């Protein structure tokens, strides 16, 4: 009876993928919460990796009938050292009625680790986007890493047959055949010459020469036309396609009225813009400007989490932005994007100044400027002036009043539409 040996290594991967998906679907709520926590914890530039999700063991157990601790039970244990029959052992402190469960933890219901697992980068983004209600096309574009260009990167000895470089392979085979065969060919010519020139008698030497000739022919025939190590393959490398630079200005009002939830919404707003820029530019920088009555460039941590009080003068931030552009980001080298979040407060006479600054000085330099106002009160003066801007500068300026995460995406709609249109154009060429 012979055993039957099967190589299954080439079978498809991810046999468990369906079950894993179902698990993730079932525990969506937990995962979503973990992702939301991660989003507020992580830096804007650090959204593109998976996350480790932890779910309380109790939420995940499959129930079954079983015994709880208590009652009377006899247990047999290995490794007795000093006990004798009749010994009475004090229970460990704080424990009464029932020794620890034997073997597997699981029936004791205490001190168990959480159930921890990893979700992938794609799943992470997927969960994050879900709140934002992104259209599918946009989701796919942001989540995919496909915006790469394949470039040639030399020649290699290893590769798949479809990558074979025929010219290089044949050249190398030819060289090898010369190297291995030249000496033998030369000798063959000598023998042939000898055989012709000395057609005279001496049979024995003639036979010897003919034998040698046969051997040579055989050896020459044994040189393979193509050998494994002749094979040469093209090597391709993926390179990010866009080759230009972008800078993103995050402007935020940090006066007392902005609470942490508002800032959290704002953060997602910035993340979305950042991811968009990430996809489209090779190099993206971020500048954080916070302002109340004066504006200051700060680090991300300070931008989101430290609080200050004071009046609100929006134009101070715009002016600072203008200065920084002039100083560090010349418009001909950089694609400049601006994103501003605020609760709509502004000092009374400042809004016309903002309008003028944006319309005359900033917007001509910018690719896109978007503004979100996170408030449940009525809009104020700043909003009205910005509305005027939106009318006159439709393409490069977007604004929106926001109450929840799902309101964020529409601000970018034009931006993303433009992008996917131009991409479609490219790919149809």
């Amino acid at each position, binding site marked *: 009876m012979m055993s039957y040996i099967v190589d299954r290594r080439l079978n498809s991967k991810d046999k*468990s993928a369906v079950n894993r998906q179902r698990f993730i679907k079932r525990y969506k709520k937990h995962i979503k919460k973990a992702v939301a926590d991660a989003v507020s914890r992580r830096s804007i530039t650090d959204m593109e990796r998976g996350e480790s999700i932890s779910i309380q063991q109790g939420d995940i157990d499959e129930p079954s009938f079983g015994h709880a*601790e208590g009652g*009377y039970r006899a247990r047999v244990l290995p490794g007795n050292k000093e006990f004798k029959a009749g010994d009475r052992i*004090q229970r460990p402190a704080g424990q009464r009625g029932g020794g620890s469960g034997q073997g597997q933890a699981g029936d004791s219901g205490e001190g168990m680790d959480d159930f921890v697992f990893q979700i992938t980068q794609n799943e992470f983004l997927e969960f994050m986007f879900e709140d934002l209600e992104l259209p599918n096309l946009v989701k796919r574009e942001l989540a995919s890493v496909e915006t790469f260009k394949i470039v040639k990167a030399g020649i290699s000895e290893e590769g798949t047959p479809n990558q074979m470089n025929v010219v290089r392979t044949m050249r190398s085979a030819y060289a090898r055949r010369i190297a291995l065969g030249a000496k033998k060919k030369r000798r063959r010519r000598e023998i042939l010459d000898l055989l012709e020139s000395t057609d005279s008698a001496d049979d024995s030497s003639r036979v010897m020469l003919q034998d040698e000739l046969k051997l040579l022919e055989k050896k020459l025939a044994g040189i393979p036309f193509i050998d494994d190590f002749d094979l040469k393959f093209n090597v391709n490398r993926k390179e990010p396609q866009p080759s230009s630079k972008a800078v993103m200005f995050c402007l935020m009002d940090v006066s007392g009225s902005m609470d942490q939830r508002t800032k959290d919404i704002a953060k997602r707003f910035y993340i979305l813009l950042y991811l968009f820029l990430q996809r489209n530019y090779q190099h993206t920088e971020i500048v954080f400007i916070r302002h109340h009555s004066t504006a200051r460039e700060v680090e991300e941590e300070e931008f989101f989490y430290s609080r200050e009080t004071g009046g609100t003068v929006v134009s101070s931030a715009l002016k600072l932005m203008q200065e920084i552009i002039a100083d560090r980001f010349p418009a001909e080298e950089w694609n400049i994007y601006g994103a501003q979040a605020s609760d709509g407060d502004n000092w009374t006479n400042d809004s016309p100044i903002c309008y003028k600054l944006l319309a005359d000085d900033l917007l001509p330099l910018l690719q896109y400027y978007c503004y979100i106002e996170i408030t449940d009160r009525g809009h104020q003066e700043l909003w009205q002036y910005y509305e005027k801007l939106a009318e006159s500068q439709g393409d490069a300026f977007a604004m929106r009043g926001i109450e929840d995460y799902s309101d964020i995406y529409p601000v970018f709609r034009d931006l993303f539409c433009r992008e996917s249109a131009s991409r479609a154009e490219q790919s149809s060429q």
Partner: protein
Amino acid sequence: MTDKLLSVGSDWTFEFIEIYDREIARIAKKYQLDTYPNQIEIIRSDQMMDAYASVGMPIGYNHWSYGKQFLNVERGYKRGQMGLAYEIVINSNPCIAYLMEENSMTMQALVIAHACYGHNSFFKSNYLFKSWTDADSIIDYFVFARNFIAQCEERYGAAEVEELLDSCHALMHYGTDRYKRPYPISAAEELARQQEREEYVQRQVNDLWRTIPRSNRSRESDEVPRFPAEPQENLLYFIEKNAPLLEPWQREVVRIVRKIAQYFYPQRQTQVMNEGWATFWHYTILNDLFDEGLVDDGFMMEFIHSHSSVVAQPDFDSPWFSGINPYALGFAMMRDIRRICEHPTEEDRRWFPQMAGGDWLENLHFAMENFKDESFIQQYLSPQVIRDFHLFCIIDDDTSDTIDVSAIHDDEGYREVREALALHYNLSTREPDIQIYEIDVRGDRSLTLRHQQSSRKPLNDDTEEVLKHLYRLWGFDVYLFSYDGEEVERSFRVPKKRISLDS
């Protein structure tokens, strides 16, 4: 000498695997190991994780719990907590065993001996497996189950099927007849008869719940006979046949879970024996290979290293202790049977008069074929093994302030230790004894369960959750009374809140 070696170096090749398999089969035959044909599958480590996640079913239906299992295995593997080297083997004909490509030749040979000849012969010859499982058709049945459940998902929605499976899984351990021998599973018949059964069962169920008065003669007696007449231990079977509201396809799903539970039932009762048997044979066979000069010292060093970590038994007070290691206990007991036959002491002659000095192979086969863990330990755990393991027995009684040592590894203690350990492997004391006691056929159709406490052990916190699942299947109120002797000690009712009786 070296030219006899089966392989050189630690890398395996298909040729080497064939050679080893042939040699191991030869030695196995010498020891009269009767096996199903083997199907040895070489797989990658991620496939091994899939295999672990599907808990012994090479073809399983989809369910989130297997996804959970997978994530668990994946995490364990990534943290390096598990080697994945041993052995997944499917009780089927042919017997399917997996070899992982990362393993060395030694490990492959070890797994072949352990799984393909050890476990395989156990599956084929142990009485529990012979009477409870049908190796010929199990794979077909898995395929049938997978397809059927996929069809149900298409027709009735994945969410509904998932809920139903959740409920069935919660009762999975209560889906076997413990004492009756079941019909073997036959996939072909299963498929052919499934439709017929749907109609038939539905008709029967309707009959049970018939509300129109049957005839005059049964009228006068108020005493309606209790239904079921006898308490039922197989909850899933009872649900399948009698639940009033289930659709035919739902009954079929209940049946599938029940049948799969039945397939795994023998494995749950023969862990010590099965692993002990397989470990004994990989140990014996590979040593024979060495004695014949077919493998070298390096091979043996690697083998012994791996073998000894498998059969290690940490002491109860060690941080690594997690119960009695079935490999260790089983291996020690199997070896001990051989020892008692070959080199009996005076003590052995007293304890095992029939066996001492007998033919070890015959005795070993007899033990493997006719016992399960509980009875095997009851019959064969010798004073020698009790001493070697330093086994001792403690009494943990929640009415006492102390934990009492009742017996140790000495003359007075052997029997009690053996008794207590055997009892530990008895499924009916390990799992609560819960049976369907009564259906209120003429009234609110409620279902009443009885739990008979063993040694005052209370039910765990899951009980109410499980009852909710039972309620979902049954469709009407479910009661559970937990009895300590004749006294109701605790009672549950679903869907309403628990009512507490004075106790």
